[in-house]
Every structure is written in C-alpha cells, then in structure tokens.
C-alpha cells in the first residue's frame, strides 16, 4: 500500500503545484484575487502532500519495507536507527523528496510573508516558485520515482553507503539543500521584477536577507562537507575539488559576488543588469549542480546513478537560463545605470574588482569541472582535472579577494581622497608588512618558511587591522556620548548589524584562510608498518602499535588497532583507528581516529594488517591548523546571523 499511496501523493502534489503556478500567473495578468487564493491553497496542499511523502518513506524505512526499491538499496536489517532516517536523503530519489519539501516550505514562508504586501510582484513570485516546485515533483513522478516497487522482494536490503553512515551526513545535506533551495526566493523575485518591469531597487531590498540566509546555509553545508571529508574519508583533507564539491562551490561564489555588488546598486544605482544576471546565474548553478550530480555525465566519488533524470534536468536548466536571460535581454533598456563610475580609487571599483575575481573563480571552477567533457568531445580522450589546476588558478584569485576584503569596506564611495586612504589604510598596511617580515624571519628560523602562508598572514593582519580600526573609531565615537566600551560595542552590533555582521563574517573567513594556508603548508604525514609493541616518531609524537582486536557490529565487521600516542606537550593517550568491512563494499572502509588540537591534530588511519595482529601498517598525519577551519566556520555563522537580523535603523 505504501508505494501506491506515496506515488499518488506525488502525482497529486505535482498537479497542485502546476495548477498553482498557472493560477498565480493568470491572476497576475487579470488581477483576479480568487485565482491567487486558489494558487495559495495549491501551495499549501502541495506542501502537505510532500510532507506525507516523507512520512510514508520514513515509515517504509522504519518497517524495512523492501518491496520499495529505494528502501531495499539504501537500508538493510542491520542499519542503525538514525541511518534508517538519514537514508531518506542518502541517494538520488530520496534527496529529490527532501529538495521538494524544502522548496515547498520556502514557498509557504513567501506566501505568509508577502501576500499582504508586494501586491504587484507577489503573484509572479508565487507562480515562479510553484513552477519550479512542479518541476521537481515531475522528476519524482517520471524519471526518479522514489516509491518504485522492487520485485522480487529481497529478504534483506543492500544497506546504506557506509561512507554516509556518519553524523555529518545527517546535517550536511540539510544545510546544503536549505542553501540550494533558498536561492529560489531571490530568483523568483528577480524574475517577477523583470516581468513587471520594476527593475529598480525594490526586489533587491526584499531579497537581500533571503540571499544571506541561503548563502549562509550553503556556507554551512560546505563547511560540514569539509568536516565530513576530514573525519570520514580518511585522507586527512577537507577539500578535493571533486565535481560535486565544485557544484556547491560555484553558486556560493556567485552569491557572494551578488551580496557585495548589491550594495553598489543600493547606494549608487549602478550594476542593475549585473545583479540580476548574478542572481539568475546563482540559481542556474544550483540547478546545474543538481544536474551534474545526478546525470552521471561526469564521474565523481559521490555522484548518484544516472538515468533519464539527466535529460529532465538539462531541459529545465535550458528553460531557466534561456528564459531568464531572454527576459533580461528584453529589459536591457530599463536597466541602465543611473550612477557612473567616478574613479578607479573608490568603493565601487573595489566591489567591481571583488565581483570580477569571484566570478572569475566561479568560471575557472566551472571550466575545470566540465573540461573532461570538452576534452572527450574534441579529442576523444577521457581525462580528469585534478586539484593542481584548481589550486594554481584560484590561489592568486583568493589572495586578491583577501586584499579587497580589507579595502572594500573602508575606502570612500565615488572617489577616495589621499587623506581618506591615509587615514584608513596606512596603519593596517604597515601592520601587514611588518607581520609579513617578522613571520618570514621567525618561520625561517624553524625551517617552516613558506611564501604563501606568510602572504596570507600579512593579508590577514592587514584586513583584521582595517576592521579593528573601523571598530575602534566607531566605539570611540559612541563613548563620547557616554557609553561604556561594552555598551558601545553592543549598540554598534545591533544598530549597524549589517555592517558589523559583515565584518564578523570577514573575520571568520580570515580564520578559515589561515587554516587553509597553514594546513596546506605545514601538515606532515608518513606511512609505516609497525610490529606489535614497536614505536615510530612523527613531528614530536611517539606512536606505539599495541595490537588489534576484531568485533562484529550490527551491519559490519570491524578490526580495530590500538595505538598509544605520546607527546611531550600533551601527555599520553590512546587512539583506535579501525577498518570496517561492509558486505556490500568491495574494499574495507577506514574509520580514522584523531585527536583535535588548536594548532595541530594527530590523525591515524589503519592500513593493511596481519590477521594474527603481529604487525600493521598505519598512516600518521600531523595536520596543522585544520581546526581553524571549523573555528572560522563558527565565527562566520555568528556574523551571518547578525547580518540577517532585522535592521534596527529602519522599519522592517
């Protein structure tokens, strides 16, 4: 019964969403309120039906209903309870349910927030959002039905991909999808503004906060993905320029560009065409990312299986891009800038450069990701583009972006005077240069000199210096009116939450930049085979192999190695890296063990071993400054939360 109910709910939700999209568009043209109400009810109905789909699928998972194909391939009787729930979005079909569900929630929020405001834009916004929802429901109906039956019914299922059996997999997809689907809201407002012809600042003011929310979830998703990669995959890294990672990174870059260029439009009424293009591009890239990971056209460690689904996504991508950009083209006349660029030395041009670099980074990532296709089309050779390409091209771009992060917020609008430049930048620039010189000299002394890290450090000090300078001036001004330091800070954060939220996000990114540069430059590793009782040494850590033990878990067998790690500074502790043997996997899965630290992590991966436990191969890594990534993520989170708060200076 479950599959039939689920399929019925899917079809009904599709019909409702499609009707809602049409009804809202018709009401926008004719002004008939009854049609709009009907569209709203359709949105509520679609949300309720998709919620029912999720409930039915969960029920099928919890009751081991292997007559459902999706349940059979993503769970087995040994799968622990939590992973029976997360298996819901562990693979292709289920992830589309989750996607649709989040989109339907965003749609509901839009209905609740804007149905009494924005009378002109709102019907089109609703129509666009329901149209997109209808597409995802169509995918659930035809090419990737999650409730497809499996015959003959197997006695047990295959089980969830062992790599996904991790806490990171519970949160990572949710954050990522909230980011991806969140960009639908600004996109819908942009399209509505283009259709109505109100291409001024209005849609931007409405959607800025939505963009920050989506941007924030995407950033969080990327960070959790990095954490998952670090502590599950067992290679000691957090980013590998895998096509799927790239798919999530590209919209992040273009959305970041938008969040900055939007300020130029707000302030100077420039870049209208550019901002609309960025929002369309960002949304297009979220669809492209979904397409890339689900079409099978590019091989990746975590792409889902293929099928006709790719054709659906490509057709939809074509519709979105051609439709929106044609609409944009037909409105070009209205999108002329009212302001002009007065000087190269100005905040406008700093933001323009920042946009240029961000879009260039997005483009190189795109180019590297699809290059295997180009190569196969042109030369008939399958090749893969690895991390060296992406690093080589992107490192200078990211360094330039770091520099601009210091310049942008403080340089004057229109035309910066020499006085303005001296007042805002002299001290931070000097601080940066001095830091660079001292850091290089000190690091040389310890044999750890590294041009890239020193450059990053100098830039970080420069940017942090500009932020500190701005903060102290603002607080000093408030203190004159009688506030204490704490009260002044508090008022500043609340009254100018957007500006200072942005600054805190920048600080988070500085911390992440130090983490990336430090971990790339200073991490060390080695692989050794140790006899039982034998020790080895790496970067001040003594590691002794104490023996192996085997155990049987609910859905896999496990061999655990015991290692005593001694370090003069941190004392002695035990680490237990393991190898897990899942019947459905050809190769065993490494379960790493690690001890995280502020400056360095010790990280152990168990390799081959003798079955009698007499010796084992282990990979030791001392990963430096990786924790700064997670720390920076927390700072970034706080800043974004502050920036999202309603602006206290104006009525919400």
């Amino acid at each position, binding site marked *: 019964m479950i599959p039939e109910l689920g399929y019925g709910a899917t079809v009904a939700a599709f019909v409702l969403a499609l009707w809602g999209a049409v009804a809202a568009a018709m009401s926008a043209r004719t002004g008939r309120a009854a049609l709009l109400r009907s569209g709203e009810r359709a949105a509520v109905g679609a949300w309720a039906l998709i919620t029912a789909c999720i409930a039915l699928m969960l029920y099928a998972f919890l009751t081991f209903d292997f007559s459902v194909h999706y349940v059979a391939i993503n769970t087995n009787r040994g799968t622990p309870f939590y992973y029976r729930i997360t298996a819901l979005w562990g693979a292709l079909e289920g992830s589309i349910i989750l996607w649709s569900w989040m989109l339907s929630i965003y749609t509901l929020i839009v209905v609740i927030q804007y149905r009494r405001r924005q009378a002109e834009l709102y019907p089109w916004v609703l129509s666009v959002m329901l149209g997109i929802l209808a597409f995802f429901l169509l995918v659930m109906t035809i090419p990737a039905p999650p409730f497809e039956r*499996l015959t003959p019914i197997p006695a047990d*299922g295959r*089980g969830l991909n062992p790599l996904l059996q991790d806490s990171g997999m519970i949160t990572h997809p949710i954050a990522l999808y909230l980011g991806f689907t969140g960009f639908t809201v600004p996109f819908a407002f942009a399209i509505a503004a283009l259709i109505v012809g109100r291409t001024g600042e209005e849609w931007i003011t409405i959607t800025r906060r939505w963009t920050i929310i989506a941007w924030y979830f995407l950033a969080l998703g990327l960070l959790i993905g990095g954490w998952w990669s670090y502590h599950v995959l067992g290679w000691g890294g957090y980013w590998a320029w895998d096509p799927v990672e790239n798919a999530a990174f590209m919209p992040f870059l273009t959305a970041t560009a938008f969040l900055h260029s939007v300020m130029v439009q707000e302030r100077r009424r420039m870049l209208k065409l550019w901002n609309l293009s960025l929002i369309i591009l960002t949304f297009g890239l979220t669809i492209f990312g979904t397409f890339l990971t689900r*079409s099978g056209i*590019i091989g990746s460690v975590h792409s889902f299986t*293929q099928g006709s689904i*790719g054709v659906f996504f*490509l057709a939809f991508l074509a519709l979105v891009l051609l439709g929106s950009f044609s609409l944009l*083209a037909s409105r070009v006349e209205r999108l002329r800038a009212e302001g002009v660029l007065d000087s190269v030395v100005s905040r406008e041009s700093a933001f323009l450069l920042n946009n240029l670099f961000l879009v260039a980074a997005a483009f190189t990532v795109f180019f590297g990701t699809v290059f295997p*296709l180009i190569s196969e089309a042109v030369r008939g050779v399958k090749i893969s583009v690895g991390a060296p390409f992406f690093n080589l091209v992107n490192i200078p771009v990211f360094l330039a972006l770091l520099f601009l992060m210091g310049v942008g917020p403080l340089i004057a609008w229109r035309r910066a005077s020499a006085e303005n430049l001296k007042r805002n930048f002299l001290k931070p620039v000097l601080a940066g240069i001095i830091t660079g010189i001292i850091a290089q000299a000190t690091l040389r002394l310890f044999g750890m000199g590294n041009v890239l890290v020193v450059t990053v450090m100098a830039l970080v000090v420069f940017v942090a210096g500009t932020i500190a300078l701005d903060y102290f001036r603002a607080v000093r001004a408030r203190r004159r009116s009688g506030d204490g330091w704490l009260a002044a800070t508090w008022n500043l954060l609340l009254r100018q939450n957007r500006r200072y939220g942005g600054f805190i996000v920048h600080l988070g990114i500085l911390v992440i930049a130090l983490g990336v540069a430090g971990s790339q430059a200073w991490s060390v590793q080695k692989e050794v085979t140790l006899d039982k009782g034998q020790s080895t040494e790496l970067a001040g850590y003594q590691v002794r192999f104490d023996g192996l033990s085997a155990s049987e878990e609910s859905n896999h067998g496990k061999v655990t190695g015991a290692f005593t790690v001694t370090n003069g500074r941190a004392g002695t502790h035990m680490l237990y890296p393991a190898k897990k043997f899942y019947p459905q996997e050809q190769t065993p899965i490494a379960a790493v063990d690690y001890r995280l630290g502020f400056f360095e992590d010790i990280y152990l991966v168990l390799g081959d071993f003798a079955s009698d436990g007499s010796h084992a191969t282990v990979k030791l890594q001392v990963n430096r400054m990786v924790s700064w990534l997670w720390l920076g993520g927390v700072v970034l989170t706080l800043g974004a939360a502050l920036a999202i708060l309603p602006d206290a200076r104006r009525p919400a």
Partner: protein
Amino acid sequence: MSASRLRWAIPAAVIPVLVLLAYGFKTDPREVPSPLLGRPAAAFSLTTFAGTPLSLEGLRGKVVMLNFWASWCIPACYEEAPALERTWQAYKDKGVTVVGVNIQDKEAAAREFLSRFEHSFPNAPDPRGRVAVDYGVYGVPETFFIDSRGRVRFKHVGALTDNIARRHLDALLKEPS
C-alpha cells in the same frame, strides 16, 4: 556595441554550454575498457557450492560466460539472475558453460540466493577474492565472455539481459575454434 545589439548575446552565450552538457549524455561513464580484452583469461580452480571442483582449465574448448555476483547486490544481481539461468538452459547443449563466482558474501546468504533463483549452472564461492582480483572486478555484477581458446573477449558491467548474453555468445560460437 550598443545595448540593443548586445542584449541577445546574453541568452545566446548560454547555448554552447547547454550543447556541451547535452553531449555529456552521449558519453557512457559505465563503459570502462578492460585491459583484459583479447588476453588469455586468468586460470582459476575453485570448489562449487555443490562440492565439485571447477577450473577454467577443465572448460577449455567451450565458450565460458563468467559471472561475478553477490547476494547483497540489490537490485542488479536480482534482476539478472533469471536471465542467467535462462541463458544456461538455452546454451548448455551448444558448447557454452555459464559459471557463477560468488564474491564477498556469506555462505548461507549465497546458498539462499542460488536456491531462490534455482540456478543449476556451476557456482562457486571465491573465499579469498583471488579470482575477483585476477579479473579486476570492481563491482558486482560483472560478466566476462571467454572464447573457446580461453581468451577474454567481452566484459559487461551491470545487470545482464538475455539479449546481451545471446549477442555475445552467438558471436563467439560462430567463430572457428
């Protein structure tokens, strides 16, 4: 260039990208060439679930369809299982042997699988995974077609169908041995 001339360049710029992505469908990521094709098939000797010895050497002169499977391989191994038995029934008197090699499995589950699909062709477990390694198996199911002179001629990744089996076997049977 004026804005009106430039305007349609924006949507037009999207088209080459879309064409490239559409081209991506023509490529098959599952088509992974095997370096074994045309080479002599690696010899093996195993003991079947029924307890009789089974070696590739002993099948010389016959066309061999060598199928690697596991009971946990859902749904592909379940999909192809009936087709394997049908192929065996249709070709066993024509100089073809179907051989199943069960890898990375538990014995009880494997036996249950065999009795469920009533497989009557020889099936053997590969307890140390040696045969799977020799043939470079990286996922189940995989099927190798070995000609009567003992050379690997085709490799099929994923569930086998009657048609695919028939096509390759007929081609191999037509060749002079």
